[in-house]
């Protein structure tokens, strides 16, 4: 499923800043040649001890949060490596909405290609959700561009292109291929700036 419109769920609170993609999916799991099956390795080094037993104090292992599909986190989530495996792992684990004050650029782009909605809210709004999402449900409505929890609702910005991609689950490559004649025309007209 590459589309997303709406969700009502409680959140998993991952109260750590600057979470990099090396943590989301460590390098030893980048050796597969498929897009599925990464969920069990999500946050591997934070979820498991060296001998493979669960680290119970990590939020993803906390039974209270099991099955939740919204991940609430802090600034600059997804920094570092471009590995889309990080998004595949979140998706495979069941996460479909991320809420944070900011995301790293490449990671943010990768989310939309895989049916995950990354929502940017103001720091104090994220703080409010951290305080309340333990027991309260969060409603995320992409069409309205709105996040609601308790008696509060926050609007969020999202680019129209990314919104349309998610709302309609469009095939981006298919869309671009409709412009094949424009691409061909560009290629034939390139001036000196094209060295290739």
């Amino acid at each position, binding site marked *: 499923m590459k589309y997303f419109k709406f969700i009502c769920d409680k959140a998993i609170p991952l*109260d*750590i*800043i*600057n979470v*990099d993609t*090396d*943590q989301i999916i*460590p*390098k*030893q799991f*980048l*050796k*597969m*040649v*498929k*897009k599925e099956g990464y969920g069990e390795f999500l946050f591997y*080094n934070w979820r498991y001890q*060296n001998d493979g037993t669960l680290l119970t104090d990590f939020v993803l292992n906390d039974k209270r949060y099991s099955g939740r599909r919204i991940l609430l986190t*802090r*600034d*600059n989530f997804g*920094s*570092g*490596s*471009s*590995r*889309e495996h990080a*998004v595949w792992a979140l998706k495979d684990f069941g996460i479909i909405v991320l809420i944070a004050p*900011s995301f*790293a*650029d*490449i990671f943010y*782009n*990768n989310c939309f*290609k*895989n049916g995950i909605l990354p929502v940017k809210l103001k720091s104090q709004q994220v703080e409010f959700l951290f305080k309340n999402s333990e027991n309260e449900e969060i409603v995320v409505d992409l069409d309205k561009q709105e996040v609601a929890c308790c008696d509060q609702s926050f609007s969020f910005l999202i*680019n*129209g*292109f*990314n*919104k*349309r991609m998610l709302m309609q689950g469009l095939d*981006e*490559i298919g869309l*671009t*291929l409709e*412009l*094949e004649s*424009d*691409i061909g025309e*560009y*290629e034939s007209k390139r001036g*000196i*700036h*094209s*060295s*290739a």
Partner: protein
Amino acid sequence: MGRTLFDKIWDNHVVYQEKDAAHGNPSLIYIDCHLIHEVTSPQAFAGLKQLGRKVRRPDLTFATMDHNVPTTNRSIPVIDSDSSIQMHTLRENCNEFGITLYDMLSPQQGIVHVIGPELGLTLPGMTIVCGDSHTSTHGAFGAFALGIGTSDVEHVLATQCLWMHKPKSLNIKFSGTISNRPGLSAKDIILSTIRQIGISGGIGSVIEYSGEGISTLSMDQRMTICNMSIEGGARAGLIAPDEVTFDYIRGRPFAPSGEKLEKMIEYWESFLTTDSETCHDKSVKMDLSRLVPQVSWGTNPSMVIDVTENIPYPEVFADGNVEEEKSAKRALEYMGLEPGMPITEINIDRVFIGSCTNARLEDLVDASRLLEGRTVSSRVNAMVVPGSQSVKRAAEEKGIDRIFKKAGFDWRESGCSMCLGMNPDVLAPKQRCASTSNRNFEGRQGFGGRTHLVSPIMAAAAAVEGKFVDVREWF
């Protein structure tokens, strides 16, 4: 109205501009060069095949194997079956779609961001993408070069284009220079820059590096700077091309030559500059006059101090930011360090000179000069992994391999190696490494491993002493 260097490259590459505001106004940007490697491409090719799509421009697509390859004897088969399958898959895909591949045993094999410039594939004014965040390296030539995810790799393979929203332009201007100041390197410049702007300071931006501190650098040094733009969160890094750039390009296999090249140089020189500093969305000034060698102490590349400083107290580092303070505490615990201790008192176990940040010829030459007549500390295991086979050959012709080996370094085959440890080159838990790579994230170089980012000469000196030293004192 004036334009930035980035504006000009962007404008040259717009194939189609979406005008419907409800669709977000993205631009369809043409990609001049697409570099691929074994780790982030298999799913992209699988996607193409599933829908019977073709590679639009195999002639603009170039592949190598770098992330997984062993750096030891390559005449024996790759033991790790997953790595082996990934490499085999790339070989099959390149074969099927007619893409040039610099295979593991090719004399041109190497880290994708080292071989692109070496082969003359990287040229000023180009757009370059690769499924690897350190694609920003190529910006040193005045090319708009950015890392992309696998879905975008598939998109570029199929269409030779990418939908993008134009990033902002951030100018970082350096006054002062490291020329004639032995002990300082480009690595110190970029580490101190990230320390200042923070690891998210560049989000949504392309950084143009300018000023005397940049124009006085060699191409190898400029590549070190642009390489770590992503560590500051930036989409890409850019340096306006000049004579240093053009001299580097002359004679490269894929670069144009003769009159054609000279005509292009004339164009690059006159066109590929920022018209006025006021064209940038944001500007930051950096003064290099007081720069000293840098060492990272934590688990992200902004957690850096001068070699003359002590490990910071989390509350001082965080400067009132609760989240940063928590993160610094966590970093100190992971790194096994106490605040207040001099960074020069930390003993190290491993030294890694390598990666797309610091494994070009100049990096190895500089490090080897310090090692002449010296020996690696008995408690340190040190290795050099040249960035490419060409770098390795050039170094061997200069006798640099013999200096490294005599000092006690391992001299390896080229690849990404212990920068990310996808091959057998990894740290053991709690091992502490002086590394010339780009990321000190938890577990990056091996589960539980502790990475300190430094320049090649700082790494060489650390190998000899078994701890960090102010390498300026060695000159």
